[in-house]
C-alpha cells in the first residue's frame, strides 16, 4: 500500500526516481535548480540505493554524462530548470537520436531576458523539437506518478526515447502537499529492471552517436519520429497498467465537465487545478463551461483533442510561453494545427498567461472564459492576447 505523506513536491520527485532504482544521477546544482538535485545527491550519499551521483561542471555536462552512463546500459535520471535546460539544449537531440531512455525532471521556469526565476513554460517550449517525450504534471501526485511512468515508457523497446517530466517551478516544486508515495515493492512490480537494447561494453562492442552522411541523416530523423509516434500506444498502455495497479487514471488530455460544454478551456500544468474551480463556478451560474488539461505535450494528442472539442463552440487555449512573431502561444499553434481539418471546429481564443510567475486566480480564469465567449462574436479577433498585461 502506498503511504500518504506530506512532502515538498521537488523532494517527492527525487524520491520517486529513487523508487525506480536509478543507477546514475548526473545533475548540476544551480542556475536555477530545485531541491531535486540535492535530494538525489542525499539519496545516493546515504547509500539508500546502489547508484552513482556524478557531479558535473554544467548542465551541458550533466546531460552529456547522463548519455555516457545510459550508453553503458544504466538507468539514468537528471534534473534541471530554465537557463540550465537551455544550456543542455545542444545535447537533448543527441540523447533522443542515441535512443537512450534518460528521464529528466524539469522544474519549469521562465528564461532570462529580463532575469526571472519564476514559473512559466518557456524553458520546455524551446526543447519541443528535440525528440523527447514530454509529460506535464498538474500536482505533486502526478509528478511522482509520471516520474515512475517515464522510465517505463522510455525504456519500452518500441520507444527507446528520453522522457521529461514537467512540474511548474515554485507552484509545484516548492509546495508541501499530501502525496501517496508508492512502496518499493509496488514500483518494482510496475517497473521491471532496465534491459538496454545495446550498450557500450567490451563484450558487446557497438558504436553510438556516429556521423550520419546526407544519405542517412534523414532516415535517422524519420526513425526517431516513428519511435515518437509508436510511443502513443505504449504511453496509453503504461497509463493503463498504472491505473490497474495504483487506481489513478492518466490520459493525454484529462477532461473536466467537457461533454456538453459550449466553452472549453485548455490548460497545461498546475494552473489546471485552479482553472477547474473556475469552471465549477461558471457551471453554478449556468454557463456550459468545461476544461481540458493537456498532460502529454509530446507526442501531441491530436486525435484526443479532436474528439474532445468537436461539440464545443469556443475553445480558450492558455499558453504560458510566447512565440515571438508567431501565430500565438506554442500550445495554441499545435491546437490550431490539430483542428484545421475538422469540419466542426470551435472558434479559438488564445491567452498568454502566467508569464514569469504572474499569479493566476480563480477570477482570472472566470474572466477569460467570459471574455472569450464575447471575443468570438467579433471574429476575426486578434490571434492572441496577453491577458492582464499592461500596455
Amino acid at each position, binding site marked *: 500500500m502506498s503511504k*500518504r*505523506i*506530506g512532502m*515538498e513536491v521537488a523532494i517527492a520527485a527525487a524520491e520517486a526516481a529513487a523508487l525506480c532504482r536509478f543507477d546514475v544521477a548526473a545533475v548540476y546544482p544551480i542556475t536555477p535548480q530545485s531541491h531535486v538535485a540535492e535530494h538525489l545527491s542525499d539519496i545516493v550519499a546515504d547509500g539508500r540505493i546502489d547508484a552513482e551521483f556524478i557531479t558535473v561542471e554544467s548542465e551541458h555536462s550533466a546531460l552529456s554524462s547522463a548519455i555516457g552512463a545510459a550508453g553503458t546500459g544504466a538507468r539514468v535520471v537528471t534534473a534541471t530548470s530554465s537557463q540550465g535546460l537551455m544550456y543542455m539544449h545542444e545535447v537533448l537531440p543527441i540523447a533522443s537520436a542515441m535512443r537512450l531512455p534518460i528521464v529528466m525532471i524539469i522544474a519549469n521556469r521562465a528564461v532570462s531576458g529580463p532575469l526571472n*526565476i*519564476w*514559473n512559466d513554460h518557456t524553458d520546455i517550449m524551446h526543447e519541443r523539437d528535440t525528440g523527447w517525450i514530454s509529460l506535464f504534471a498538474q500536482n505533486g501526485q502526478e509528478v511522482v506518478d509520471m516520474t515512475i511512468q517515464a522510465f517505463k515508457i522510455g525504456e519500452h523497446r518500441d520507444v527507446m526515447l528520453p522522457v521529461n517530466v514537467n512540474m511548474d517551478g*515554485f*507552484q509545484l516544486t*516548492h*509546495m*508541501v*502537499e*499530501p502525496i501517496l508515495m508508492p512502496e518499493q515493492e509496488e514500483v518494482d512490480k510496475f517497473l521491471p529492471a532496465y534491459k538496454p537494447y545495446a550498450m557500450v561494453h567490451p563484450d558487446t562492442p557497438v558504436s553510438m552517436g556516429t556521423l550520419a552522411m546526407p544519405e542517412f541523416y534523414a532516415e535517422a530523423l524519420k526513425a526517431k519520429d516513428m519511435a515518437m509516434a509508436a510511443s502513443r500506444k505504449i504511453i496509453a498502455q503504461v497509463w493503463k497498467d498504472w491505473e490497474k495497479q495504483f487506481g489513478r487514471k492518466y490520459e493525454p488530455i484529462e477532461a473536466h465537465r467537457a461533454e456538453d460544454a459550449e466553452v472549453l478551456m485548455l490548460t497545461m500544468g*498546475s*494552473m489546471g*487545478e*485552479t482553472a*477547474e*474551480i473556475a469552471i465549477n463556478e461558471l457551471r453554478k451560474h449556468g454557463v456550459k463551461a468545461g476544461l481540458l488539461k493537456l498532460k502529454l505535450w509530446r507526442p501531441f494528442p491530436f486525435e484526443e483533442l479532436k474528439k474532445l472539442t468537436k461539440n464545443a463552440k469556443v475553445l480558450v487555449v492558455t499558453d504560458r510561453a510566447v512565440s515571438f512573431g508567431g501565430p500565438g502561444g506554442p500550445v495554441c499553434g499545435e491546437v490550431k494545427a490539430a483542428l484545421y481539418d475538422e469540419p466542426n471546429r470551435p472558434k479559438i481564443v488564445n491567452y498568454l498567461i502566467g508569464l514569469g*510567475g504572474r*499569479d*493566476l*486566480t*480563480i477570477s482570472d480564469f472566470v474572466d477569460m472564459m467570459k471574455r472569450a465567449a464575447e471575443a468570438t462574436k467579433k471574429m476575426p479577433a486578434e490571434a492572441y492576447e496577453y491577458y492582464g498585461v499592461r500596455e
Partner: protein
Amino acid sequence: MIEVRWHGRGGQGAVTSVEMLALAAIEEGKFAQGFPSFGPERRGAPVTAFNRVDDHQIKLRSGIYNPDVVVVLDESLISLVNVTEGLKPDGVLIVNTTRSAKELAKLLNYSGKIATVDALGIARQELGVPITNTTMLGALIKVTNVVKLDSVKGPIEHRFGRIAQKNMNALQRAHKEVKLNYK
C-alpha cells in the same frame, strides 16, 4: 478552508513553520499546502510564507490574498510591512510581542482580533536563540485549533532531531501563554 500568512525575516524559519503546520495537518488526514513566497530570499529581509488547510483536496494554487490568520514572527516588521493587508474582517492577527493587543491595535490602526505572545522571550529561554518559528506555531494552534498540538510532534522531531524537545517545549509554552485578547 483556512488560509494563513506568515511574516518573518529571512533566516527566522517562516518556511519551516509552514512546512511543520502542513505536515501536521496531513498527518491528521487533512489536506494542506505549505509554501514560501516564491522567489529569491535574503537573510534578514522581510519574507512571507503561506498555508492552506482543509478537510477536502485543495485545488487552489494561486497566492493567498485574504488570509484567515496572519502570524508575525518578528515585531519589527509591523512598521515595515502592512501585516494586516487583506486579512479577513473576522480573521485574527497573531503577533510575537510584549505589547498589549490594545497597544498593537492602535499602532496598526486595526480593529480586528489580535492575539499576542512573548515568543521572543520564550524562544530565548527554551531554545537559547531568538528564533520564534516553532514558538509561534504553538500560538497559532491555540488560537485556531487548525491541528492538534500532538500532531506537530512528529514533524518537529523529524525536522529538529536532538533539539526537537526544546522546540516542543517552546511551542507548548506559547500554546499556554498566548493571550487571546479578542476585541
